[in-house]
């Protein structure tokens, strides 16, 4: 297990290095930040001064060398737009994205496992129908529409929740609720399908024959065996949330990593783009390693 984790960590580091090189050069092919930062009627001299001030007038290989050298000293460079260290800007955004993603995924996990297992236990029953409806809504209704409708209903009509922002715990309710729907709809179906397969297995029939009651049968015996595909899908969904939930962040004014990344790409704020991608990649690599560990915990064959 330790060896496997070590191998994954080395592979992740190499991937990170490749990603950094790729993003560095590709981002610089997309346009001149001076043109976007300065007003449309800025003089050529102003543009040249801007490039010189930020080292953008140097040959690209020289810029890359300087970037790598700084990176080795844990200096990710400054944001062109915000005139402050890019790492500060990115980590600040992560302090909002990370809890948003973790809380949402935790709720999704609990709800999807419980409801998915109950739906599979009695096909066509109340839970099965509930799960189908929520899955359908999650798959078919766009995030932005759900978000706007939620604001109209819960903030304007009822006045129960703030429309947007991050001031109090109540500000988190609508963003989490909107983010919850899509991964829940997907994962609950995976749990249901996986549980249906597991419930038909010979060992379950044996357990039933031995008189094991429903609750331990579902949540102790069957669920554990049904969890491997669920964890895989959960990993994908969690990765998407760690990349930022652009639409939800935009609508609810949540200063997270998704909106920061999009804005930085549009503004050609290279250092922020690079830092955000690298920090996100590290977060996803860590999560993948945790998933590998979870596989090992659930399935002893993987540990060996």
């Amino acid at each position: 297990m330790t060896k496997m984790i070590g191998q994954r960590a080395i592979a992740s580091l190499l991937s990170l290095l490749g990603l950094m090189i790729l993003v560095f050069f590709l981002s610089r092919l997309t346009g001149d930040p001076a043109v976007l930062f300065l007003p449309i009627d800025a003089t050529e001299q102003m543009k040249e001064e801007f490039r010189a001030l930020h080292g953008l007038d140097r040959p690209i290989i020289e810029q890359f060398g300087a970037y790598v050298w700084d990176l080795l000293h844990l200096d990710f460079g400054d944001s062109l737009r915000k005139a402050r260290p890019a790492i500060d800007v990115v980590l600040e955004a992560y302090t909002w994205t990370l809890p948003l993603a973790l809380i949402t995924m935790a709720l999704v996990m609990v709800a999807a496992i419980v409801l998915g297992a109950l739906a599979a236990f009695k096909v066509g029953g109340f839970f099965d129908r509930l799960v189908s409806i929520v899955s359908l809504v999650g798959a078919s209704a766009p995030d932005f529409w759900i978000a706007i409708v939620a604001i109209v209903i819960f903030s304007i009509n009822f006045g129960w929740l703030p429309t947007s922002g991050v001031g109090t715990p109540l500000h988190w309710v609508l963003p989490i609720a909107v983010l919850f729907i899509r991964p829940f709809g997907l994962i609950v179906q995976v749990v249901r399908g996986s549980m249906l397969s597991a419930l038909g297995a010979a060992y379950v029939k044996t357990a039933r024959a031995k008189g094991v009651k429903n609750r331990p049968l579902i949540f102790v015996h069957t669920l554990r065996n049904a969890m491997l595909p669920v964890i895989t899908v959960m990993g994908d969904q969690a990765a998407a949330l760690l990349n930022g939930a652009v639409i939800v962040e935009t609508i609810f004014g949540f200063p997270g990593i998704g909106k920061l990344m999009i804005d930085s790409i549009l503004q050609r704020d290279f250092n922020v783009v690079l830092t955000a991608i690298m920090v996100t990649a590290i977060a996803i690599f860590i999560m993948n390693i945790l998933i590998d560990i979870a596989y090992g915990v659930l399935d002893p064959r993987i540990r060996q």
Partner: protein
Amino acid sequence: MLFKHLLGGVLLASTSIVPAMAQTNTDITVVLSEELDLVEPCMATRSNIGRVIMQNISETLTELDVRGDAGLMPRLAESWEDLGNGTWQFKLRQGVTFSDGTTFDAADVKHSFDRVFSDQITCESKRYFADTALTFNIVDDNTIDIRAEPAQPILPLLMTLVTIVPSEAPVEVLREPIGTGPYVMSEWAAGQQIVLTRRDDYWGTQPAVTKATYVFRSEPAVRAAMVEAGEADIAPQITQEEATNPATDFTYPNSETVYLRIDQTIEPMGDLRVRQALNAAIDREAFIGTVLAEGTELAVAMVPPTTLGWNADLEPPAFDPEKAKELLAAAAADGINTGAPIEVIARTENFPHVTEVGEVIVQMLNDVGFKATLRMVEVAEHEQYYSKPYPEGRVAQLLMAQHDNSRGDPVFSMYFKYHSQGTQSGVNDPKVDELIEKATAATGDERAALWSELFAYVQKEIVADVLLFHMVGHSRVGERIDFKPTIATNSQLQLSEISFK
């Protein structure tokens, strides 16, 4: 039972949030569309920064009355005088202090300009002095002579664009701006909010607003909803679709002009008849009240009607498709390739419904015989086509752009858009160059007359572009607030203009 507990909890929480969201009587919340990356005073001519900083935290020597007809007004300078030889003398206001307690004097003015011209910081206002060398002579603490080489007849007007910082301000980007304005920045939580608090020691009249909290939401429906829900008091820049409540929603000219820039160097655009046909082919009225808001005006110049030298005699080109066809036929008979492909290039999210406007224009052009297509591009690609040097090997292009001039003088538009050396010009006409140069150097009535003549010449004689619309903006203002958004709201939002009902 569980449900009752949950519902009870939610209701309890909702009652507890109401006081938090409600405002103290004279505190306001403003919800802006775009977060501020910087709070640097020398970047205050950028609209999102200017709305927070300009005349609230930092002040300028002079101030232009964009809304009324008072013209150029004193602010930190009490008076100014043209001493000749390109030199203007500014008498500075006495008894003014910065928010850090230091006294405002002539050295602060010089230092503010030194920062603007430094190559160690990027300041937007530097562009207004691109071809002008300024030298400063501090006569005494309250008098400064500024000499422009070449002479700059609108130097006092240009003073509306440079914010004054104290001599102690470092040259690097400021994160805690110090100014002479009626407010001081008391909090900046990046990505969340900026708070301005009223100063007790401001030199001028105390504004009614005691504290202003700026929050940022890029979705217009959310900005409008925030005012409706009582979470915010002012939401500039909502959309036409949101501006449905006459009690709170205002529609007003926003100083933006939409036009199609014609590049006359590419066939068939060099032919006058083709350019006239372009103008006659577009039914401008058809856009208003449909894809564009009611109140949008047909443009007859690159600048809004509040600008110096406005030519009231000009009328928008008449929609006449038959005439457009005749003009094209006449041009084709003379060997002009009127069937050459034309690209209409527009920028995504440039203004609401820009894609629909582009699609309709292309259809109208093709209806009279042009071979036009629409290409929507993002901002960086748009800039490649907008400013010189234009791409080599291009087909004929009509570049759709939106230009903002709320500065009061055409000089901020006409050189860039029409002079043969202008960075966004598609024109190469000696008379245009001459008129721009003469008007730029002139003063008073002569200046206004020259600009007026230029407007007529570019529109009627050389048909330099396809002028389309003077746009309108929409803002929502909470019912407890006494504030009417105007053309100035596009670039600044002076808290001192806000009071309470």
